[in-house]
């Protein structure tokens, strides 16, 4: 049942490949909030983006009733607090919230930065990065076991903050496995996460937002070619 707000009330400035943008969209879906998706053209930044996020000039930006909010995790928390009648995204207990925030920050500060360079890395450098990502996945598996308490998601029965923060990365995780010719999410090492990944992608709020692995691979190749061609980004 759609939330009663005019679609013009809520806009998301973003691009389909960005895991950070995906987070904002999943959060809005959890709350059944309709929104207008304004796709940025890759390689250029719209006037609206530059005006709405002058500090970082990055997507996603949520524009609610004309007011911009930037930084994906800030946006997700904002959505959770504004549409408070919908299903909760953050846990209700302050300690559980602190744990969810900790691991979301870990995904942003450690996990994703070590994942990204794998696709074009070689030899020793690549091996080191893969080791780092695998160690990260083992930590996240542990966090999953503790947080889910036997249920399907980090958030329990329903997807929550950490599911959104980490799950948004799955498209790139799988694409990296393909491009880097390496197995990262491994049933033998992180069985909980493998199962979780399937459940997450099948969830109603997530469906259609995690791009096909092939599409991301193509996109990554396009970006790499463009960067080589221009000589600088």
């Amino acid at each position, binding site marked *: 049942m759609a939330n009663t707000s005019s679609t013009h009330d809520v806009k998301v400035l973003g691009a389909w490949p960005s895991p950070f943008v995906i987070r904002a969209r999943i959060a809005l879906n959890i709350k059944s909030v309709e929104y207008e998706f304004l796709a940025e053209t890759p390689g250029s930044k719209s006037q609206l983006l530059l005006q709405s996020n002058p500090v970082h000039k990055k997507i996603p930006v949520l524009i609610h009733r004309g007011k911009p909010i930037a930084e994906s995790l800030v946006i997700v928390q904002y959505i959770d607090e*504004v549409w408070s009648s919908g299903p909760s995204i953050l846990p209700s207990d*302050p300690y559980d919230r602190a744990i969810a925030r900790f691991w979301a920050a870990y995904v942003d500060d450690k996990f994703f930065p070590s994942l990204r360079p794998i696709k074009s890395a070689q030899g020793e450098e690549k091996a080191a990065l893969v080791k780092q990502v695998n160690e990260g996945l083992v930590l996240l598996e542990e966090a999953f076991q503790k947080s889910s308490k036997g249920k399907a998601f980090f958030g329990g029965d329903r997807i929550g903050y950490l599911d959104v923060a980490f799950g948004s990365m799955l498209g790139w995780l799988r694409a990296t496995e393909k491009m880097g010719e390496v197995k990262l999410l491994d049933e033998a090492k992180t069985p909980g996460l493998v199962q979780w990944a399937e459940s997450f992608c099948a969830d109603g709020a997530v469906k259609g937002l995690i791009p096909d692995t092939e599409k991301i691979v193509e996109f990554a190749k396009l970006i790499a070619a463009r960067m080589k061609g221009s000589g600088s980004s």
Partner: protein
Amino acid sequence: MAEEVVLLDFWVSMFGMRVRVALAEKGIKYEYREEDLRNKSDLLLQMNPVHKKIPVLIHNGKPICESLIIVQYIDEVWNDKSPLLPSDPYKRAQARFWADFVDKKVYESGRKLWTTKGEEHGAAKKEFLEILKTLEEELGEKPYFGGETFGFVDVAFVTFYSWFNAFETFGEFSMEAEHPKIIAWAKRCMQKESVAKTLPDQQKVYEFVLGMRKRFLGE
């Protein structure tokens, strides 16, 4: 239930100071444990196995890590006085955005002021002053980043004030000359007991950074 609050910290850490300020704002009694970062305690390694860093707040035996996450936790648990985050969701989002900005920008940029030389140093100085300019613009005419009252962003940034002498000396600029509004704001915050009692003397911090710089640059 008797509250047991322990803070694992290091006196000069602006991140640890944030937690101390928040605890003081809320009037929370706690045990302060100074860590030797070159010889980390078993407790620290046990309580923060992922990052092995301070600060770590241990509340009734359970650890909370990452300074801004700790400050939000403190604000949510001890919610009977001195709210640090505003109640309006949009204002909360702005507060989180700017605290995140301080986290992403001020420390790394400030660090380059005392770890680099020559051209790199010139670029670092320019970058640092730009960051302060952005913060000064965000502050505007408000008494605090939080508006009329001291809040989350003030806690996030004011602890860097204890490092200003070090930044100025190694950065080769005068904070008062470049960004007087920031100085005025910091002095206003220092009138609060929670801030004044927490922040170490700038001279002591300078001497500490001088020592680190010598070791880093191999002088």
